[in-house]
Structures are given as structure tokens and as C-alpha cells.
């Protein structure tokens, strides 16, 4: 079933849409969630919550890509879950590393929570991504969107792990400069 068909079902409030969504993209979403939370059961819960979020938001939302809309919701759930976990104990997963990497090269200022800033950041991130060479962009997204570990990225892209780390280092630096230039940092 295509994304458009699933969206149509959602608009019709047909729960088959969620079944289809889960069977089509559930595995990818779960793996990303697991990398963030470090725990499978937590990841599955995030996927379930993500499905619920899809149900509750479509309609009126009509995303261009249901796949990545869904994954975004799952990621957010996973990040929220991780934040709660962190308050209690440290877990595994790729999130600590990813956060540390970003934190190291793009130090935090104030925690930006307001919607406008988030939206602006999201827009600018895409501008930034557009300017990157494809390989660098792919590596960056694999790491910070799909939360893949460096070794996995290296293997998938036919690179050495050290090469992947260098690319990430370089792109983070570029992102920092970009965010500063945009007045977002």
C-alpha cells in the first residue's frame, strides 16, 4: 500500500492504515527508536506511541511523506523516553554518543523549546543539508537521523570507520558555523 493510500485510510478513520503503516515502516522505526532508547521494549512502545500520534494528527495533517512523518514522531517519542530514562539511570543505545558528538562541536546555549525556533531550525537544517555533498549528507543523516553507529555506516557505505568519523566531525563543524551564521547559535 502506498503512503497516499494509507493517508486516505487515515482520513477515513480506517484503522487498517495503522496496520499497514506498521508493517511497512515499523521495522525501520523500531530500529531507530532502539538506537535512541537503547532498549527494545522501550523502542516498541515508542513505535506504538508513534502510531497513535499519527492517528491523532492525520487528519488534519497531510504529510508529503508519511514514512518520514511517522518516523519523526517515533523519534520524538524515543527522545522523550530517553530523557525520562536518563533522569533515572543511564542506558545503552546510540543517543548518548550522538548527543555528545553534537554537544562537543555545537555547544548548547539555552534550551530552545518554543515552536517558532524549532520550526526555524528545522527549515535551516534542510538548507544546510542541501549544501552538503551527497556522501557527507548521507553519512550525517545516517548518524543523526537514523542513529546508526559509525561502524554500521562505514560498512554500508564502503568506507572506513575512521573516514566516517572524520566526515561527521567535519560536518558538525560546518553545521556549527552554519548555525552561528544563521543566528541560531
Amino acid at each position, binding site marked *: 500500500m502506498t503512503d497516499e493510500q494509507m493517508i486516505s485510510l487515515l482520513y477515513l478513520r480506517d484503522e487498517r492504515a495503522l496496520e499497514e503503516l506498521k508493517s511497512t515502516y515499523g521495522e525501520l522505526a523500531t530500529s531507530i527508536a532502539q538506537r535512541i532508547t537503547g532498549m527494545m521494549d522501550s523502542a516498541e512502545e515508542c513505535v506504538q506511541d508513534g502510531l497513535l500520534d499519527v492517528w491523532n494528527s492525520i487528519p488534519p495533517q497531510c504529510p508529503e511523506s508519511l514514512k518520514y512523518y511517522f518516523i519523526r514522531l517515533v523519534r520524538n517519542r524515543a527522545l522523550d523516553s530517553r530523557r525520562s530514562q536518563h533522569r533515572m539511570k543511564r542506558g545503552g543505545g546510540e543517543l548518548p554518543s550522538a548527543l555528545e558528538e553534537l554537544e562537543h562541536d555545537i555547544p548548547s*546555549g539555552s534550551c530552545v523549546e518554543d515552536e517558532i525556533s524549532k520550526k526555524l531550525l*528545522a527549515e535551516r537544517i534542510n538548507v544546510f543539508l542541501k549544501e552538503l555533498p551527497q556522501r557527507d549528507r548521507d553519512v550525517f543523516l545516517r548518524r543523526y537521523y537514523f542513529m546508526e553507529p559509525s561502524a554500521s555506516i562505514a560498512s554500508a557505505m564502503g568506507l572506513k570507520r575512521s*573516514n566516517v568519523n*572524520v566526515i561527521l566531525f567535519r560536518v558538525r563543524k560546518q553545521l556549527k558555523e552554519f548555525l552561528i551564521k544563521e543566528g541560531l547559535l
Partner: protein
Amino acid sequence: MNSEAILRSVAFADPEYLEQALKPQKMTQKSKRKARFLVPIAAVLSLMLLAAGVAAAVIYGPHIVAAKTQEDSFDLILFGGDAAEDAPGYLAQYYLPAQLPEGSRLKRGMVSWISEMIWTVPIGDTEGEITFHQVALRKDLEEYPFLNWSGIDLNDMKQDNQKIGGVSCWIIRDGSFETYFWNDPENHYLLYASFNEPIPQKMREDFLNSVAPASQTDVCRMMDVEERTVWYPNDLPDRFEIYPFALYVSNDPSETGFAVASDHQGRSVTLVQGKHLPKEEFDRFEKSERDIDEISVCCYVSTKEMDGGTIKDEVWCFTIDGKTELQLDFCSCNTDVFTEADMIEVFRGLAEVPIETLDLVELNRNK
């Protein structure tokens, strides 16, 4: 703007980019070939070693690090450590200057790799001691012309068979002392120190006593550390210019990397750092779990057991700073033989000047 906000915002990436990122990607044969920078270093090294009359029973290899600024221009390239003596650095110093066209932006300098010594001192609050090892331990270097500049009698230097490795760039700047070096005996690939305060007097005295024993102070001089100076032998050939600059490194032993530094006049400086890396170390290096931020390619060549001049088990590696825009993204390190064309490509990338030919053997013969 915290890092989590960035992670959440990445979620809004264009789906087309996301799809693209997930597509299987493997190097093509063409790019693998292009990435394979192979020079007949083994041949050059073997000639050098044979000329030196050394039967190298030790596995070693040059480990060259090159960096390039993001602006794609070079105001200065400095060759430090083993890069200053080994074939690529050697060639870059002797060949490139002769071949550079008029008005080339490339300049070259050599920081004092020859200041090797054994010097163990505590460094401020950093953990443990930092030891600089003597290149003098490697007797094959005695025949290198560079060593003559130092005026240091290698036979008088301390011997320590437990330690191998070399000292890299020594830069003294504004009274502080920053350096970068390799520390082998502890099986750490990289251990370096950054001093942000003026050199303690005792340290300076130790340094001078180690480097320039009383009998040799007339040939080795260290300029006033209060000024922006670099320590170098007083008979350095004129074509080599030393620029004071800061090499930014970290005193965190868990970090690695080479920094592209800027000098005080706003020029960019590129550091080509060399280190002989035994194969077993290289293997560990490759398998190291640590993140190595600054190195995108690792190249290394090993000459093993000189057997009538036959080089066995050649592995060539070339390490490049992470900021490089060169196409040298990766290198196959399995008994390939470098070609002159590859070497030309390397220096073309570094120097951005047209270098059409490179006669390695001829150059060596001349030296």
C-alpha cells in the same frame, strides 16, 4: 540551541535526502583505484636503507599526515617528524621547491624534528609523564642529510631500546610550548600535550640540557621563548623558513588528531606530520575503538626484513587530516605498490600546483 534540538530538527530533513542516505552505497572499482595512493616508497626506502648499509630487521613504516585548509589554499606547509625525513616529506622538501612555478602559494618549512630527545617530565596537571623519544635510536637515520644540521652527536644521546618513535613538531610560541608527538612504549597511538602557560624554568633547563649539551650549544640554539620563535638549528638551509605558529592539540590522551593551525599573521598553516608506525601498531590503530576525528585515511608502508633488497609485506598508508578536501578518502593497505602517478596526485592535492613528473629514483640518486 541544544544538541537534542538539533537531533529533533534533523527529523525534518527532506525525505528525498533520507531515502538517498539509505540506499546501498559501495565504492566503485574506479574510485577504489583512485583512492589507492601508492608510490614506490619501498623502492626508495630500500635504496636509502641499502645506501645507509642498514639491514633493517625492524618493521617500520612512514606514517604521514597531511592536512589541507578548507579554503583550498596553502600559505605554508610544514613537514614535521618523520615526514621531514622520509620519502614523501623528503621529496616535498627537495622536489617541490624546485618544481614549484613562480609565485606559487606553497611555501615550505621544516620544524625541528631533529630535536628529538628523551625527556620525561610531568606536564602541569596532565596525567602521567610525557616522553619524547629519540629518533636517534634508529641508526638508519644517521645517513640522512637532515641529521647533520642538528649538530647533535647521535652516539652521545641516550639509548633506550625500549622506546621507539619520534618527536614531531616543536613550536615555541609566546613563551608557551606546544608539541605533538607519538608515544610508543605505552601502546598509545597518540599522546600529546598542550602547554598554555609559559614553560617552567626547570622544564626549560631540562629541555636545553637534553637537546643541547654544553659541548654543543654552539651548534644548537634555542631562541628566546619569550618571543614568537621556533627552535631550530642555526645552520638550516635558507630555503627553509620557519614560521611561528601554534599547533592546537589537546592534552586529553584519549583524543587524537592533527590540527591545522594558523599563524599569527593570519596565514594558514598546514602540517604534514610523519611518524614511523610499525605494522602491529597500525593494526591496532585500525582496530582501535576510539573515535579518530582528524584522520580520514590511514596510510602506512612497512619494509620488512630486507632480504637481499627485496621488500616484503608492503603496506602503504597515508593519513590525512579530517579537514582535507582531497579525494584521498581511503586507501587500500594490502601489499599494493604505489605509483608515481599516485604520488603526484597526492602532492597535487596538497600543493595545487601542476606537477607533471616525479622522478623518485633520480631524486634519491642525487642525494
